[in-house]
């Protein structure tokens, strides 16, 4: 096992740990923005994941996935954040 392979495997492990921690935050909340942050972080994690995958399999194509996600992923965050905010401004109190 080369150094690179080990680094890649370690990278996967680290990224996964990050995702797992994010998941815990997602479950625990407590506020809506907390959950959104957790989801947002996962986007970044997948981008990294794609990079690692590209190195591991020697296939550039995985970077295309990262490229697309890097550009588009935040839209979900924007939509959710807007939801959190608008829901309140529309006066739907106590209604998530």
């Amino acid at each position, binding site marked *: 096992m080369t150094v690179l392979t080990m680094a890649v495997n370690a990278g996967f492990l680290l990224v996964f740990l990050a995702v797992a921690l994010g998941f815990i935050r997602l479950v625990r909340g407590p506020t809506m923005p907390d959950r959104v942050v957790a989801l947002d972080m996962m986007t970044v994690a997948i981008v990294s994941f794609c990079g690692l995958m590209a190195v591991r399999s020697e296939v550039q194509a995985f970077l295309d996935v990262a490229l697309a996600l890097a*550009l*588009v992923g935040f839209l979900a965050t924007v939509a959710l954040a807007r939801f959190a905010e608008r829901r309140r401004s529309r006066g739907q109190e106590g209604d998530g």
Partner: protein
Amino acid sequence: MNSVILRAGTRYLAGLLLVFSIYMLLRGHNEPGGGFIGGLIGATGFVLFAIACGTEDARRSLRVEPQAIAAVGLGIALLAGLAAALFGDDLFTGQWLFINATETEKGLPLSTVLVFDIGVYMVVLGSILTLVFAMEEEI
């Protein structure tokens, strides 16, 4: 959405997303991408636009109804398939034209397959925008 930051960002991101979407569309035959993915990304651009600046602006900059884009896209995809009839082939048989073909290089390919993919792109773009705009206007 009255966020100055989002609107400022959208100004650049929307353009970027559109250009990127067309790039994804055109390279799709050889690398990851294609009409679906391109259309999805392109739609994201306008969706962002609609979220940031409202659907009214987004519709105005789109100029045509998104439904029409989708319908025309479907028509284009169909015509790409029907074109095979002119060459005596079966429906959806790809017709290829290689510009600047040389002995070693195939040249720049133009094909009904690409036209088909452009139709797919328009359909996905138009349809998603139809949906999102209509929903946005409900709230």
